[in-house]
């Protein structure tokens, strides 16, 4: 399926060059999102690890750290 672009209100199919650029964009976006999600998961895991070490309940942790 050819992807569509809207340029200043005109809908049309993407040119080969535009489609290549768009697919490169989405590929990089996906990679960036994955890196960010992994970093966020690691951060949450570290937080949970610290909470576990302190022996806090989830409510207590929320009261302390938000």
């Amino acid at each position: 399926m050819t992807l569509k672009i809207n340029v200043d209100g005109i809908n049309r199919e993407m040119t080969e060059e535009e489609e290549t650029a768009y697919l490169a964009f989405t590929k990089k976006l996906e990679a960036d999102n994955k890196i960010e999600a992994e970093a966020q998961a690691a951060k949450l895991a570290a937080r949970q690890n610290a909470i576990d070490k302190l022996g806090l309940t989830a409510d207590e942790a929320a009261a302390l750290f938000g």
Partner: protein
Amino acid sequence: MAIQDFTAGQVLTAAQMDSLQANDYNQTVSTKTASYTLVAADKGTRVVMNSASATTITVNTSLFNAGDTVYLQNIGAGVSTVTAGTATVSSAGPLAIPQNGGGLLYFTSAGVSIYYPSAVTASASGLVCVKAETAFTTASTINVNNVFSSTYTNYLLNIIFDASTELDVQLRLRVGGVDNSTANSYKRQTIEASGGSSTVTQTQRDNYLLGAGNASAPSAIQAYLFQPFSAAKTPIMSNNQRSSNTTTIFISWAYHDQTVSYDGFSLLTSTGTITGTYSVYGYSKTV
């Protein structure tokens, strides 16, 4: 015919009477094609400005007396402004006379006048549409060119759309038809709230995440772009809601760190397509 000073014994001719009467019913007109300073002979007449460029009508003291009037009119494209020279000019309205406007200049004394405008320039709206509501259909990319200019500093972007699937909508600023995709140049902090809890993320990318949508209901994005046309860093703020069983709210602030003057922007989906409309508004710089 200018006002006459008849003396005792002088014969009033029919021509003079007709001329004086004519001024009552069809005022004597003097047309000016450049800025003009009123003179005593203008009393009781109509001064018509006709210039494509802006002009002034200067009012000086000691030329008129209490009760004298001059009708001021502008038929040219250039705005003509009643300007106090050595006399004072007061008005409850604007002193600028737009094309096809006019007004009465009335003297309360030799050096004090009041201008009563009969037509005024329409005041500019605070929010001016610079890109009318524009539809897009099953688009993965939307390019919007030539919407930013020196006329406005800050802009509002409204987007409402249906998404083909769960997706994000990213923005990139552009100039001359080319997106700026400099790595890490869009520095963003986002709060996303859903189901009673929230997540805060901070990141820097080669694009700005405006918001998201899904296939279950229309989504709306409202974005504020600050000084995009200035060759300065561009702050951006966006609000977004998307609905499913619960409404997700997304608030994001960012700035784009490139000191570049932009004339437009692009919207890019992370996947899938969007169908809807967008419109762009400029915030007036003046009241």
